[in-house]
Each structure stands twice: as structure tokens, then as C-alpha cells.
């Protein structure tokens, strides 16, 4: 019977993630995500000045942040590139701190937790990313896609075996 991976094997070290202090602006977050896009990162971890992990900023939250301007645009002028968006978006909105838009982490998983439990928590709390701690210290994060891949691969392998 195929074995399912441990959560430890799926986590991504915290230093590999884009992260920012909560007072960084929406504009800075857009820049950061733009420059980290090619590395496969679509979210930003948010910290306080003491390096306490506070939350995560998703693309959708950024879009929400600049939404008022978007809806005002006529269909023909909807920005289709980040750069254009930067110039057309409301400057005041862009200067707002990301803490206003991020999703706070209400939950943290332990590195010893089973990935099924992690998947359950993600579904329950409607989040695609969870921080992982070991001995009360955050050591990384795990994403929905990692969990998804591991669980579905396990199911497929189990089906073939049976």
C-alpha cells in the first residue's frame, strides 16, 4: 500500500516566501508579487516589526484593494497588465497599508499534523495557505496545491494497487 507523505516534507521554508511588514503599501505589494510571479509565488506573508507572522495577502485581496478604480473604467479600458493598473489605479488606494487587505492567520498547524487534518482545516477556514510551527516557532507554510497533489496522488496510487 502506498504511503502518504508527512507534512514536514511538504512545507516551504518561510524565507522562500515573499514577505512584507504590515505597513507596506498596496503598491509595494503589487511590485513584490510582480517580481516574484515567476518563482511561483502568488501570495505574500505579512509580518509585524518584531517578525511575528500576522497573515497572508492574496492576489484577490490586492485586486479588491484597487477595485473601486477598476469598476469605474469603461470595458474598453480595463487594464490588462499590472503596470497599466499601477498607473490607472487610485493613488490613495495604492498607498494604503496591506494590513487593511490581508487575511489574518487564525489558525496554525503543527509540523507533526497529518496532511488530511491540514486539508480539513483549509476547507473549514476557506484558506489556501497555512503557517506551520514546530515547537512554537514558525518554520514555514504549506499551500493547498501541495496538499491537493499529495492527497490525490495517494488516491490514484491506492486505486491502482487495489
Amino acid at each position, binding site marked *: 500500500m502506498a504511503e502518504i507523505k508527512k507534512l514536514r516534507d511538504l512545507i516551504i521554508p518561510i524565507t522562500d516566501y515573499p*514577505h512584507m511588514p504590515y505597513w507596506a503599501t498596496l503598491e509595494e505589494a503589487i511590485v513584490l508579487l510582480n517580481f516574484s510571479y515567476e518563482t511561483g509565488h502568488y501570495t505574500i506573508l505579512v509580518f509585524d*516589526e518584531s517578525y511575528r507572522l500576522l497573515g497572508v495577502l492574496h492576489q484577490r485581496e490586492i485586486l479588491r484593494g484597487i477595485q473601486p478604480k477598476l469598476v469605474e473604467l469603461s470595458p474598453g479600458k480595463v487594464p490588462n497588465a499590472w503596470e497599466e493598473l499601477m498607473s490607472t489605479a487610485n493613488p490613495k488606494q495604492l498607498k494604503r497599508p496591506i494590513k487593511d487587505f490581508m487575511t489574518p492567520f487564525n489558525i496554525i498547524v503543527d509540523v507533526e499534523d497529518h496532511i488530511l487534518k491540514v486539508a480539513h482545516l483549509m476547507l473549514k477556514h476557506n484558506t489556501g495557505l497555512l503557517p506551520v510551527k514546530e515547537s512554537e516557532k514558525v518554520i514555514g507554510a504549506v499551500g493547498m496545491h501541495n496538499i491537493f497533489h499529495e492527497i490525490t496522488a495517494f488516491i490514484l496510487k491506492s486505486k491502482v494497487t487495489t
Partner: protein
Amino acid sequence: MRSLLDIFKKIKFKRTETSTPSPPERTIFKERYDCFQKLLSANNSVLETMADMEEKISGDYIFDMSYVRSTCETVVESVHNIIEHLNKLSNGKYSALYDAFEKINSDIEGALAKKAEIPVTPFTIPFEQVTKDMVNSVGGKNANLGEVKNRVNLPVPEGFCISAYAFKKFMDYDKLRDEITLSSVDIGDVEGLNRISKKVRDLIMKAHIPPDLERSISNAYLELSKKIAHRGGILNASVRSSAIHEDAHFTFAGQYKTALNVVPENLTKKYREVVASLFTPRAIFYCESKGFQEEDMVMAVGVVEMIDAKASGVMYSRDPTDAGRDAIIINAVWGLGPYAVEGKVSPNTYVVSKDSDRTILEKNIPVQGVMLKCSPEEGAGEVEALEGKEGKPCLADDQIKTLAEYALVLEQHYGKPQDIEWSLDQNDNFFILQSRPLRILAEKSKKPIPTSLRGYKLLIDKGQIACKGVGAGKVYLITKEEDLENFPEGAVLVAKHTSPKFVTVMNKASAIVADVGSPTGHMASLAREYNVPTILNTEVAMKSLEAGQEITVDAINRNIYEGRIEELVEAGKTENPFKDTPVFKVLKGVLQNIVPLNLIYPEDEEKFRPELCETFHDITRFAHEVAMNEMFKIGGGPDVKKGGAIKLVVKLPLDIHVIDLGGGVKNDSDKITPDHILSIPMNALLKGLMEIEWPGPPPVNVKGFLSVVANTTIQPHSEKALWEPSFAVISKEYMNFSIRLGYHLQTVEAYAGDNLNDNYIRFLLKGGGASIDRRARRTRLIKEVLEKIDFHVDRTGDVLDGRVTKYDRATIEKKLGTVAKLTAFTKQLDMTLFNDAVVDWYVQEFIKKHYVEEKKPGRC
């Protein structure tokens, strides 16, 4: 867990606190700062004095021994002070400098005490044994005559020298030297000069000639008469001066006596007269004004077969009025030569081409009514020119060509144009009587270099001259040290700043131009040593000049032209007529122990050591460098918190405490706000810090913020480090500010005074809260911005050490403003720097928003 609200409260509370002054620590700081300031002052004194001495050695000025002695005293005293203050500042860490100082000082004293050495020789030396290398033994004129006779093999009258050693013995015999003191002579006091001159000449004329010298002269004359007996002419001699500096590089023309047609029994009398002529008022004036010392006034004498001349004259191997003209000028008079040079009659003038045919280009034959002729018994007198000779040329064409040939042979032998005296005896034999370097009158009377040239594009017309001259070549821009490696031969070095490291290409550079820099700086000193025309402080050279562009640098009028202007380059070539005077040589000698800079690379610890200081410049450079390091340490020292710091109440997210070393804070202040700060660098920094919007915890929407914090469940970094106080040790011109910002320590040290050489900013940063790769990216960001404002930055990982030096006060203040904004801008930014692309974006962002280009860097 403590909330940020608590932290804000704490900050607010802290701002109302005032630390209790602790006098002992502050006294220590003050003492150290006092040492630092005195060191800077002494350092400036050395640099300024050095610059002045180097300017003197450039040849544009006349100076005397009292100048050399007094400037040396200033330098010695100042360097000693530097070492004293540095050791006080560093608790004796650099005592090895004293050893270096003693050695250099001893060498300087040796150079100052150096006197002209008179070699021990026979009293008389026949011309057959004389060459130009024997100037100190036989004087300049004799030495050249011997050279012409024995090495050039041109005809020279027979004769012998009465040596310099004979002169010494003569002066010693009646202790004449003790009687002759010229040091108190004021050459501006004509009456006094005449009085002293007469006294000395009377002494000499009455003095006894040592019997052995008299015998030697008598014997030498006997030998001479045997040699010339076969000519069948007169057996008298001319007795001619040959001072040890005469004819070498100084003509001394007409300064000393020549006695013509002297009978043997009067030789010693005429010898006295010639020796006495060393002290005529005009000769004393000449010596003093040329910087000779009393000890250098030594007179050898030539006793030369008297040529009963049919014609005589002088010739120049090059046209002295037009150095560019390829022609030989010959002047001739009937009779003896003095009339050719004294202007008594108008001489024949022949201009001869240097072409292979020696074509006679011009002849000018005025009427000569009188001439000088040997008298039947002794001496010479004026007689009517012989009938039939008036209006006729003194020389036939073939004789003119023979003389022209001689002139060229002599010029070739000596390697420079010659001023030659010649004589034609009654049997039409030529004799060379004297050959000395031709003072090119064309150079002397050279048209001054025009302050601006029409027809040429003037690119830059400002700056400060650090080394006079004119150089032309292609522009080679130096933006980083490595650029020096490929410096092309003959290029013009153009840089933003000066650097002693440019010395490595000074043998290749035709000129140096820099936007910023001081004529009293280290590099300027090196440029003068290498004689590279240099203009500093042009402000715009890096922007105005393009790499590879051909330019002419006129470091006489502070102009830079497009293209190569040969007439300027040629006009800029100068020969220093003063360079072979004894006093010039003494200055040159002492400067060898003062000016050269060997300690160029402070980062090379192996070579940047007190033991390796070979000159006073090395000591000052070393001391200034390490003194700044010693001062830099006080801000981060363990005692800083006990230094009687006063809290600075300011609307900044910083807990600033100020320690005043004097003049940095208003005296009557018991509550410090930015308005009480008098420190120039501190004010500049505070202004920048207050102008920028600080990134950080926004003081709004606290409720939402708290809810976020409340959800945090992970172990954070220590919060203690976040709120540690920052200490600023300041004075009117100085600031050493250790800034605690987030998780890194940053120190900004600056000096902003009136002397550009003192001014600097140092920026040191280490640490951060993010991972090492992100911290390193932040130092890259800071490095790029600092380099934009001309800092030299060393960076290793998350450690950055930047420095900028030698800008005027206003520019230092501007740069501090930028540094302040950069400080705020990068606070905890390391967290965000995910990759290099993000760094690049932030660099551009800072430049766009906060970098104000300094339009006018440099001196006020």
C-alpha cells in the same frame, strides 16, 4: 504579550526622560574630540604648507633659505603634533609613528645642513685635465672650456684653472670667511649693500695669498707659457672668473670680473680682483635673489692664453628670439670680444641655416667705428677701427660656416642650445672661449598663454589648479578603481573625485581633471610631484567630457578645450630657470622626505602601517585615516550611555540622546529639541529624517491593528532590540550618530566644517531582522544609492561601510540629508527584498522620490 500600543506609550514616556549627566565620561569624550580637532588642524597645516612648498618648487616663485627653514619647521612641528594627538586619542596605540618621525626629521635636518662641498684638488689644474664634471673643482666656465677642449675637441686657448680648493685656502688663510657675513644683507637696501660689498672686497684685496698657492700659480703659468710660445704672439693671459655656479644653469653674465691681457707679474693681483668680484653689489644681489647661500659663493679662476683677436663675437646655436626658427645666429666685431656683448658697437650679424649647406640666410654689416684691442704692455683699450674695415664683414662666408658648424657640434654635445663666445686670432685661427646653455629668450619673452583661444571650443572654464601646465590627450573616464588598470598612455584622466590611487597612472597621464578635489589634497600633491597638469573642482567634467574625446587641458588659465591645440601644449612647456640653485636643491631634498606618498591603500593592512611611513605625508595620511576610525568608535563605545546624554525631543520614531562635546547644543538648553541643535551635521541629518515619511507602524486604525496582533501565535524576534536608544555625540562641526533602527545598527559620522580637507561622512551599517540574503540585498540597495551620491562603499554581505570625503560644507549637508532619508526609507526594508528585481525597483523608487541631484558639488 506586549502590544504596540504599550510600546508607543513607552516611547512617549521615554521622550520626557532626561538622562543624568555624567561628567567624567563626557570629559573623556571631549578630550578625545579635542585631540581629533587638533589633529585635523595640524593635518591641514601640513597639507597647506606642503602645497605651498610644492608650488614653490614648480619654479614660478623665488624663495630663500629662510623660507625653506621656516616651512620645514612648520611641517615638523605639525607632524609631531599629529602624532601626539593621535596617540592621545588612541591611548598610545600608534607610538611606532615616533620612530618614523625621528628618522624622517633627521633626514630633513641633514638635507638642510647640506653645504656645497669643495673637493680637495691641486691649487691649479691645466685645461687638459678638465671636463664638465668638475664644476665644483674648477667652476662652471672652466669646466665647460675643458669639456670643449677635451671631449668636443674644438680649438680652445691654452690655460689652467685656479681651483675652488685654492679659493677655500685663500679665504681660510687670513680667516676671511669669519669676516664676511652676508646673511644679514638686505638686497633692497642699496646703500647697505654697497657698504658691505666694499668692505668685503677691500678685505680680499688686502688679504695674503698663501705662499704655496702663489707658487702653484707661478709654476702653472710657466707651463702655460711653454705651451703657447710657439704661436709667436703675446705671452700675456686673461684672468677670468669661474664661479662654481657660473655657466652651469645660471649665466651670471657680466657679474664677475675678467681681466684681459695680464702680465705674469700681476697674475695674483688680478686673481684677488676676480675673487673680490664675487662680492660686488650686483653679484651679491644676483646670488641672493637667485637663492644662493653664502657657502655657495665660491670662485675658481681661469688663466687663459690671451688671444690677440682680429675679430671676436658670440653665437647662438638657435635663434634666441624665435625658438622655432631653425637657424644659427652669429655676432661678430672687429677686435676683442667684450665689445660684442657690451653694446658698445653694433656687431655684424649672420643668420645661418641648419641645412646641410649651412646656407647663410642673412648678413647685417653695420659700420664699426671703434674696437677693443690688446694694449702693448697690458690690458686692452679702445682704438679706431682700422681703415678699410668699417662696413666690411668681419668674417668670410667659409668662416661663418665653420663657426656655424662649431655651434651645431656644441649644441649636439650638450644636448641643448648653446651661447658661445669665440675669437679669431691674427692668423685666422678660431678659438672657443666659452660655451654655456643658451637662455632661450623666446621662452623668456614667450607670449603669455591666452586666457581664452578663439576658434576653439571651450568646454570647461572653471576649477582650481592643482598643478600648472598644459596637457592634451583623449579623455579617459575613471568611475571605479579598476578603470586605472587599462589607463592608456597619454590620456587625460577625468574623474568625479581625486584619489591618491591615481598615482599608478601619473606617469602615463597627460593631464588630470576632476569634478571635486582640493589643491591641498593628497592627489594634488602627487600630481605636482609627477608634474601632471591638473585642474580640480571643475564641477562638471564628468558630465561635459566624453570618453575618447580629444581635449587640451590648460591648467594655467583653468580652461579645457575640445581637440588638441598644439600651440597651447607647446606654450605650456616650461623650463625652470631656478631649479639648479642651491636653495632649490635644498628644498627639493627636504621635500623628498616630506611629500611622496607611499601609504596609498588603507584597506591593505599589511602595507598601511606606522612602520612603513617613509615621509611626513605618509604619517599625516596614516594618522588622519586612523584618527577618523578612532573617533568613529566613540559612538558605539560602551561608555556612550554614561556620557551625560540629553534626550532629544523630536517627532521621529527614534529614541535619540545627545552628548555635546562643545558647540553642538545651545548653552542654555535644559530641554533639547531640534531647535537647540547647533551641530551642522546633526542639523542636516535631522532635517532629512524629519522631511521623509517614515515607514512603520501607522498610528491609525489601532483597533484593526490590535485584532491582527491578537491572532499572532508565533515566536517573534526579541522586541528589546527594537527600542534601544540612539546616541549622537556632537559638536559644532562633528557628529557621530549611532542609530538603532529595527534590528540593525547604523552609524553615521560626519564632519562639516569650513576646511574641505576635514569634511567627510562615514556610513556604517550591519545586521537586520530578515534572513541573510535579504539583509545582503538591503546593503546592495543602500550601496547603489550611496554611490549615486559619490560615496565609496565597501560591502560584504549585510555589512556596509561607505565614506565620502573632501566636499565643502554645503555639499556635505546635502549628502547628509540624502543619507537621512535613505536611513528612514530602508528601515526594516530587508524583510521585503525577496529578490534582486525588487531591490532594483526600490533603488529607482528612492532616487525618484528622494534623491535631489547636487548641482554644484565641490568647494564654495
